[in-house]
């Protein structure tokens, strides 16, 4: 960022929706908002793993004078004097469209339906491919498996509209230790539905991979 942040003991002063706030050094806008209990919706964010900026629901508008930019609060570092708006017209436009598209992408996810309803999005005009789908490809499962468990049993396969969560060659991965972390961090029920395909039949395991 070109804007200079003047720091007082490393603390940064700025506003969120007009409220004056103070961020510790290293905090993101989202960290600060949560500290002050200002709600910002997220789907791909989890304290246990590094942020990735995939779901974009946590967008906020950063302003100063005539300058303004829509940024993601989960990664944006606040700077002295910036005005953050969590519910501006541009912000809500991004969130509402994402939620409407998610209703078509993963219509079976209760959590997303509830979040969409909170934003006044009750229906979708877009094509539903799979009415049973719950996964939004936020990648939390992949990140927790790599960063926390240290196993890397799953990854993204392919790209773009064909992107999916999978094990190599779509066969159960012997590396999986069946710890269930992926299921725990999943914001919807998607990973629970996929777990069998990742770890396979535990009874047939030879023990390899359980050494962790």
């Amino acid at each position, binding site marked *: 960022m070109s804007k200079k942040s003047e720091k007082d003991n490393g603390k940064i002063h700025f506003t969120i929706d007009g409220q004056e706030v103070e961020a510790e050094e290293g905090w993101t806008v989202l960290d600060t908002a949560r500290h002050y209990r200002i709600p910002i919706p997220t789907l791909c964010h989890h304290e246990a793993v590094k942020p990735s900026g995939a779901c974009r629901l946590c967008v906020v508008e950063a302003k100063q004078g005539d300058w303004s930019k829509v940024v993601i609060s989960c990664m944006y570092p606040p700077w002295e004097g910036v005005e953050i708006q969590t519910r501006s017209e541009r912000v809500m436009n991004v969130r509402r469209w994402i939620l409407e598209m998610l209703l078509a992408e993963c219509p079976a996810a209760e959590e997303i339906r509830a979040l969409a309803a909170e934003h006044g999005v009750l229906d979708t005009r877009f094509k539903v491919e799979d009415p049973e789908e719950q996964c939004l490809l936020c990648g939390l499962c992949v990140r927790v498996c790599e960063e926390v468990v240290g196993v*890397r049993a*799953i990854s*993204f*396969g*392919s*790209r773009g509209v064909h992107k999916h969560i999978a094990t*190599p*060659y779509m066969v159960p*991965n012997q*590396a999986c230790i069946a710890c269930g972390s992926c299921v725990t961090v999943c914001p919807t029920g998607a990973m629970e539905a996929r777990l069998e395909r990742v770890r396979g039949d535990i009874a047939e395991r030879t023990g390899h991979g359980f050494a962790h």
Partner: protein
Amino acid sequence: MKQEGKDIDAILERYPEEPRYLIALLQDVQAEYNYISEENLKLICEHLCVPVTQAWAVATFYKSFSLEPRGEHEIKVCLGTACHLKGGQRLVENLTRDLGVQPEETTPDLKFTLDTVNCLGACALAPVAVVDEEYQAQVTSKKLKKTIQKLAAE
């Protein structure tokens, strides 16, 4: 098109055992064998100390890698903007019908693979197709059909 490749070890030895050479190694194996078999993918991973998940993610992310054997002949139609304006899409549709496969697919007899490419940078030749690495400038469906018939008869 090469079917029988060199010993994989000779290819592996071209690169130091560092994860950064994953893409280069996959490219060399793809070029040599025409595809990346599960066995070779695992050998690459062992050589570079890369988890299979990462190599598989990379191999499925990039368009130039194929995890399945490709056809003996490769027909690549350019769909860059200039080619699009001059009917590239129609070439693909007609080839799809003639060959009975969709783009990125291989005919069951492993004779042909149909592919599209997002601009070869040969826009003055639009529409362009590349058949077995040979550029065909200002190509028509009729010419392509003849080429296929000729190759099929070989």
